[in-house]
């Protein structure tokens, strides 16, 4: 038995696919659990959230 420290991300499947692509560039996923859950390294959480935000932002259209 072993215990691995990490952060459990709960997300929708679209976000998960983006996370998987991001992981190929720079690895941060510890364990891919299922369609809605992944465990990532705790100290990478801030960076991952920021990059994910930037990625999602590309998909929105703004009037301004």
């Amino acid at each position: 038995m072993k215990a691995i420290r990490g952060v459990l991300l709960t997300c929708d499947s679209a976000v998960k696919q983006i996370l998987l692509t991001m992981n190929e560039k720079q690895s941060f996923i510890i364990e891919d659990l299922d369609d809605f859950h992944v465990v990532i390294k705790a100290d990478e959480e801030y960076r991952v959230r920021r990059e994910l935000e930037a990625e999602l932002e590309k998909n929105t259209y703004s009037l301004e």
Partner: protein
Amino acid sequence: MAGPSIRIKPAGEPSKSTNISGEDSSHRLVAFLQSQSQNTLTRLYQKPSSCLSIFRLLRPLERQLVMNLLWLEMPVPASTMAAWVTREGKRPYHDALATLARLHILPQSPVKHALNPTFKSSMRQAITGGGSSGSFGVLSENDDKHPPPDIEALDAYALERWETILYYMVSSGTGQFPARPSQGVLYLLQRSRLMANVHGNTLQITSAGFQFLLHPPHEQLWELLLQYLQMAEERQMDLVEVLSFLLMLSTTELGKDYSMENLSATQKAMLEDLRDYGLIKQRTATSRRFSPTRLATTLTSSSPPLPTSTGTGNGSQAQGFIVLETNYRLYAYTDNPLQIAVLNLFVTLKSRFPNLVVGQITRESVKKALTNGITADQVISYLITHAHPQMRKNKPLLPVTVQDQIRLWELEKNRVKSQEGYLYTAFASQADYEYVLNYAKQLDVVLWENASRRCFFGSVEGHANIRGFIERRSAAGNA
């Protein structure tokens, strides 16, 4: 295992109303009183004015129960009273009894019901008058040299004080430097965590502060006063005296001068704080009399605590000033800097006219509000409370598209949820896995599990316990 699902409230339904007569929730002060000791409350009930004010804050059913029992000399058998209640009324009835018991107004008893004798005699006195306790405040002698201030001056004063506080909050950290409220107010804002000290000594509004700004004035006022009550004990002030003074103020009459003669030392000290909040006005700091403002006299009533806002004075602000269209455009008929600053929290303002501000609710503006800690529901309820009378013809009041979109923007922000913890894997056997998992479930720390992969994710709080559990078990196994 269910994935994250998207749930949107039906837009037509107004979100939880937070007005004073809200049927489903008690007043904030009532909740606070319930946490006080019987001794404190009984001392408080010695004042007729306190009893009357608390009575006014109770919910309708609770008020009816009190009124029914008030004039009875003998206790009523519980069975007799229960016979008044219809079957549907059972739950509200028991809720009301429980609230009154926690307030020690109607001590809990399975056999018979009778009001707390102190409360009963004070409440009777409040209704019938009589007694010379001066519990409702003592009017000061007429003085031709200094007539009491007129109501307009009092309103202007209260409004100026109150808006100074709110405007200071809303413009902190924007580079503007509006008038600072007094040191006491700043301390109170900091203690209530509405503002926090960031780098050095500049106060900055917190996310709780942003939410505070969108509340109706009555609630804002009580939020600060409850904080004040909590501080009172630290300052060695007698809670009962502080409370009974506030409740007395709520029964005073607007536009009258009251004498300080029979106030206790604590209450005299309070005058200075209350002056800063705009609850009372004194001609000079050393004056021997004070006049309550509308903020004080409406503390326990349902009439609005603030008169019409400054500026145009056309009275429309009292009912609302915001027109919101289906194309996300927003027109606000106001020239009040506070209201404009509050709108600026979640609206992109485009143009400004002498009595009108035009803006647009955009994804960016709502996102900014969300990162400040304001929720979509708060934005929507602010828009509903301040909607222009013209908007009230619409049903539902706000365009459904806009409401839904604001909620969707909020969901978009929460697409990823993160929880720290430990992933437990590589169990030797299925039995081993289930044994540890069961233990973790008893602790209620399991966030995710998968039996076929024999692993589960537990929150960080449970880790020490689970580790101890496994160590104890393997030690026992080896022995």
